[in-house]
């Protein structure tokens, strides 16, 4: 088992014929992901990478019944692409696009509520359930199937974590990047809830960072409903200066809120094992799992 995606997920690529989408769709196909179609307005009827291309998501859904969509479109078209997928009945939308304006994302969130679709991202490397399906841009080969669930606000830092886990002999059930933007789809709480019920997952690693309150909300969630599996967390940005945006649009300490220290305190108080050396993510997770046994 895994969460969000598995070997049966039928994946649609929005913006398929673009350069980035083409590159990463090839990687996904190589990984074994069941990519079934693509959408590029104006290119309907063509084939690309052997996949049928449609003008609209609706047409693609009618023809190929995808249930997951991964979005590679320009930033100002991002919100519309998510809304289109949700309106067409896509269950899980993974938006890779970075730089969607934050007010667009506020609109997207209420739209998603209306249609009952889930969103991963935007500004995410995507989701991978190793050995089953990869929906995103992460390097597939560093992953291996196993017992650790990962939820992360960061891309390369997730690869680093996966790499360390794999070196320590630990595979991953599902690794999901929730995105580095101020307003994103599913966050720690929702994914912790999914991992709670996933039998493959034996421990969960949270990779947080400065800005916002997703980590604090996770702490509140874990405090109020006892979690049956060990949870570890690394929060990046203990050295981050206030008021400066560190790469991600969402990684900023504003009005004295959202510092790494505050997040760490809250998570610690909720019983989460704090990793303070980011080179020890693999080691500490291995320890937590061996203690459990």
């Amino acid at each position, binding site marked *: 088992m895994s969460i969000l995606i598995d070997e049966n997920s039928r994946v649609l690529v929005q913006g398929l014929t673009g350069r980035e989408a083409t590159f990463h769709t090839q990687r996904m196909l190589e990984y074994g992901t069941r990519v079934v179609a693509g959408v590029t307005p104006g290119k309907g009827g063509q084939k690309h990478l052997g996949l049928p291309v449609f003008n609209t998501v609706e047409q693609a859904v009618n023809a190929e019944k995808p249930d997951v969509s991964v979005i590679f479109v320009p930033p100002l078209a991002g919100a519309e692409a998510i809304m289109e997928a949700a309106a067409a009945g896509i269950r899980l939308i993974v938006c890779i696009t970075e730089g969607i304006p934050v007010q667009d994302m506020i609109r997207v969130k209420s739209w998603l509520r209306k249609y009952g679709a889930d969103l991963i991202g935007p500004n995410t490397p995507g989701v991978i359930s190793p050995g089953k399906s990869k929906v995103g841009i992460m390097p597939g080969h560093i992953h291996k199937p196993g017992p650790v669930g990962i939820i992360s606000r960061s*891309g390369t*830092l997730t690869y680093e974590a996966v790499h360390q886990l794999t070196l320590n002999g630990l595979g991953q059930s599902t690794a999901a990047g929730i995105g580095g933007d101020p307003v994103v789809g599913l966050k720690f709480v929702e994914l912790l809830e999914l991992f709670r019920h996933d039998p493959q997952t034996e421990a969960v690693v949270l990779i947080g960072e400065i800005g916002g309150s997703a980590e604090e909300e996770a702490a509140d969630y874990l405090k109020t409903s006892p979690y049956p599996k060990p949870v570890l967390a690394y929060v990046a940005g203990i050295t981050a200066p206030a008021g400066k945006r560190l790469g991600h649009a969402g990684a900023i300490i504003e009005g004295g809120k959202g510092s790494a220290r505050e997040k760490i305190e809250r998570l610690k108080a909720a019983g989460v094992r704090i990793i303070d050396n980011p080179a020890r993510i693999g080691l500490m997770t291995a320890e937590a799992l061996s203690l459990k046994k």
Partner: protein
Amino acid sequence: MLIHEYQAKEFLKQLGINLPEGRIVSTPAEAREAASELSCPVVLKAQVLAGGRGRAGGVLEALTPEDAEKLAAKLLGSRLVTSQSGPPGLPVEKILVEKLVKVRREIYAGIGIDRKNEALVAIVGRQGGMEIERLAAARPDSIRKIHFHPDEGLKLFQARQLAYFLELEEAQIKEFVFLIKKLSRFFIERDLKLAEINPLSLDEEGKLVALDARLEFDDSSLPRHPEIASLRDESQENELERDARKHGLNYIKMDGEIGCLVNGAGLAMATMDIIKYFGGQPANFLDIGGGVTEEAVSRAFEILMADSQVKSALINIFGGIVRCDLVARGVVKAAQNLSLNKPVVVRLEGTNVAEGRRILEESGLPFSFAPDFEQAARMAVILSRKTE
């Protein structure tokens, strides 16, 4: 993107919001002329993109036009160091000269984005002039927030609730409702992230006058608002940061001695953190990003090394989309043009790692290779001390 007070006030004026009479000047002579046109006393406000100007001496009162000229001469061309500007301060190139408003009461009015509630939020405070976060901490009862959706806008009844919370008189209620409705509509139409009028003052005739204004736009939305994008004042950015931005790099200057060059924002933060963990201080945040070119990597390395505080450098690449060989080539090219007199620790992992390592090794330049993330950080910290 933050814009200057005088630019923000230009927008408020278009919205029909009352402002003190004022002139923007860039020479002492213009300041004198403005002061006599407006008739003294006037206030001179240094236009720098950082808060805390008042306490830093950037806001001065002039009683005569001569006085205004003298004070302007002192301010213009200087660098103002405020609590928010960072150590080198920001250059004062323009001054806003305004007629002094006799203030009966000061309040706070702002629109922002509430990340947690995924909504826009209108905030008012019964006291103005101080930072809203400080007011919220000191007197939470004096603040009221109302959330709204960008598609729905701030409703009239919500604007009224805010106005009544402020305990304004009936005539001012109407004025305030007008102001906050206009400001919220502007906020939505132009994709703002923050719009603050602080203080919003009641003058002696009971009129609401925006004494100071802060507008921050969403960088991501600038492509659809070219008229806003053109307001960027590059003189207010750190030179290295500006240079980095132009190359699509995310660089932020900090106060430490170990320079970092990393791909990915999270890994870049983690690299800073681990340096601290092993007793060092990072000199910067630097994320070269996913779509980086060889040339941009070169520039990144040059920017890194241009920081005189840097004692050692740490290159930490986990290749995914970014290929290790591309980074290696960019670094080598830049390093060959510099007299590489500082130790550089390199940790490469992921896509094309072998090729990357080969390029670095064959360059003949004195790179130190680390086997993993932790060793890389330890080495960089140790090497930064050796050079002292």
